[in-house]
């Protein structure tokens, strides 16, 4: 057998079910490899001893009917984990130990998975490069000094470096799909309402969704199947019959109509991305799908809309961090002074900037001009998708306008950083599912991704399309383990 850490999630599951591997075999391999990979700065909190103990417990009485039998998994540090420190990569939560578990992680543990640790991300998931974390940059295993993308940067990096067989992230404007694209991995943002938001540190509640990050499409289907559930604890959780995504996965996409939105051909898009997109179209044609040119006329307004809506919701969600009931506190001369000092010291610059933007657009005299305006444009963007989904079954676009960039390259220009999410943000505004799959390499040898966007709750369809494309693309990246300490 090849190295345990080279196996995909689905392969590990079948090896454990066939009793060729034990949970302890798998867990200890991942722990060893994670210990040698500290240079990537992916983990904020390691729970290796507890994981080994749980693996041993699993092996002594293995329940092989579970979907993730004894599978170790590290998760983004935005998911609250009972009795395990949860920071959202912020100083303000540096000492926070939740007394409850998020629904999505609970679903993983209920199906047999074991927590390996908590993964670094942008502070409160606000960023596209993992440079805003209080715990420092995450490095991409793809190359030295390269960002893994964000905000689920630690998750993407740990997955690509094979420090976890699969992982979960959250996606508010592209935070699963963009880092997946940057690291040559698969990332899926489900339809809003598919995965419970209960116990996930809130950023922008009308946009946030948790989703799987995996090495292949089959794994994404399996993990989504486990994560997605109706939950009374999330008022926007949708009660629908959830398919068996991995069981129903199929490469038959004959006759599917795939839309190519012309507005995604943005100014200054590189030839490499154009070619990647064209190749994608051809693969789909080879699979028997029909390619149709479509128009999403309000695309260019999606990012400015997002940068009103998301900060507005964030300013409201983050009002709870005041140093009173939990988290970090700086003492002050009076109550207000304590609030102001606590928040000034506890939040990083990007988080403060977004709270300020949000406060401004919601403030008296500006609400109509900004927030209400953005909500109206959000309607237009959603209508665009509704219109073309009358004609097509799914949409194909690039995942990002470029491959990963170097650490520090965009950190001084917020707008250029925000433009990274140009292809992913419209999907969140419309609440749709989207998946990014690795589709090729650029001239520098860095991964590039393609995104498939589907109708609401049509995850099975985009998974099937991704599954058939994956076969044709046959993506390979030669991972050189330059970061490892022996």
């Amino acid at each position, binding site marked *: 057998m090849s190295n345990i850490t080279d196996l995909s999630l689905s392969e590990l599951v079948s090896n454990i079910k066939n009793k060729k591997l034990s949970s302890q075999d798998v867990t200890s391999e991942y722990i060893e490899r994670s210990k040698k990979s500290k240079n990537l700065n992916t983990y904020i909190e390691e729970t290796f001893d507890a994981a080994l103990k749980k693996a041993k417990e699993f092996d002594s009485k293995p329940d092989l009917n579970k979907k993730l039998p004894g599978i170790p998994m590290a998760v983004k540090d935005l998911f609250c984990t009972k009795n395990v420190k949860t920071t959202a990569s912020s100083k303000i939560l540096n*000492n926070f130990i939740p007394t409850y578990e998020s629904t999505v992680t609970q679903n993983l543990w209920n199906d047999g998975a074991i927590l390996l640790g908590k993964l670094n991300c942008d502070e409160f998931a606000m960023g596209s490069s993992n440079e805003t974390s209080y715990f420092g940059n995450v490095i991409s295993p793809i190359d030295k000094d390269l960002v893994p993308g964000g905000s689920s940067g630690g998750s993407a990096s740990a997955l690509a470096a094979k420090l976890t067989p699969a992982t979960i992230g959250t996606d508010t404007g592209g935070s699963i799909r963009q880092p997946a694209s940057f690291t040559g991995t698969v990332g899926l943002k489900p339809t809003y309402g598919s995965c419970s938001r209960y116990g996930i540190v809130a950023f922008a509640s009308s946009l946030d969704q948790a989703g799987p990050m995996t090495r292949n499409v089959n794994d994404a289907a399996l993990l989504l199947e486990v994560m997605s559930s109706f939950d009374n604890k999330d008022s926007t959780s949708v009660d629908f019959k959830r398919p068996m995504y991995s069981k129903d996965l199929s490469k038959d996409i004959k006759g599917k109509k795939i839309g190519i939105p012309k507005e995604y051909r943005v100014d200054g898009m590189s030839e490499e991305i154009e070619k990647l997109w064209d190749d994608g179209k051809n693969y789909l044609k080879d699979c028997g799908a029909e390619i149709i040119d479509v128009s999403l006329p309000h695309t260019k307004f999606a990012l400015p809309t997002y940068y009103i809506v998301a900060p507005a919701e964030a300013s409201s969600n983050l009002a709870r961090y005041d140093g009173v009931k939990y988290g970090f506190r700086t*003492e002050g001369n009076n109550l207000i002074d304590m609030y102001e000092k606590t928040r000034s010291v506890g939040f990083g610059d990007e988080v403060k*900037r977004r709270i300020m933007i949000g406060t401004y657009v919601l403030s008296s005299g500006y609400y109509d001009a900004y927030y209400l305006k953005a909500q109206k444009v959000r309607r237009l963007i959603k209508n665009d998708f509704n219109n073309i989904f009358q004609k097509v079954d799914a949409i194909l676009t690039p995942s990002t306008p470029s491959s990963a960039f170097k650490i520090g390259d965009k950190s001084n220009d917020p707008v250029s950083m925000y433009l990274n999410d140009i292809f992913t943000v419209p999907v969140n505004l419309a609440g749709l599912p989207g998946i990014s799959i690795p589709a090729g390499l650029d001239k520098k040898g860095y991964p590039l991704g393609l995104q498939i966007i589907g109708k609401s709750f049509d995850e099975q369809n985009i998974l099937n399309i991704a599954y058939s494309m994956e076969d044709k693309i046959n993506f390979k990246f030669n991972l050189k383990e330059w970061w490892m300490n022996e």
Partner: protein
Amino acid sequence: MSIDLKTVKHISKLSRISLDEQKAKKLETDLNLIFKWIEQLNELKTENIEPLSSIAETKLRLRKDEIKSKNIREEILKNSPDDNKDFFVVPKVVE
């Protein structure tokens, strides 16, 4: 519309985030850059468009108002930043 330093300080007050002069000036620059870019939304006429506040445009579910977690006082106080484990303690509010 440009945002001046006075406005930045006002927003910082509303946000309960204290700022020194240097940070305020940096934010003045950043916010002007960001809002100049955001203002392209004004190209769109939206008078008769219904605002969209949530994708889940369904009615909120009703449920019985009942206590599900009992005796969790200690748990709740566990993360309190102050050492007092009986109450949340804040600076004196009423003179």
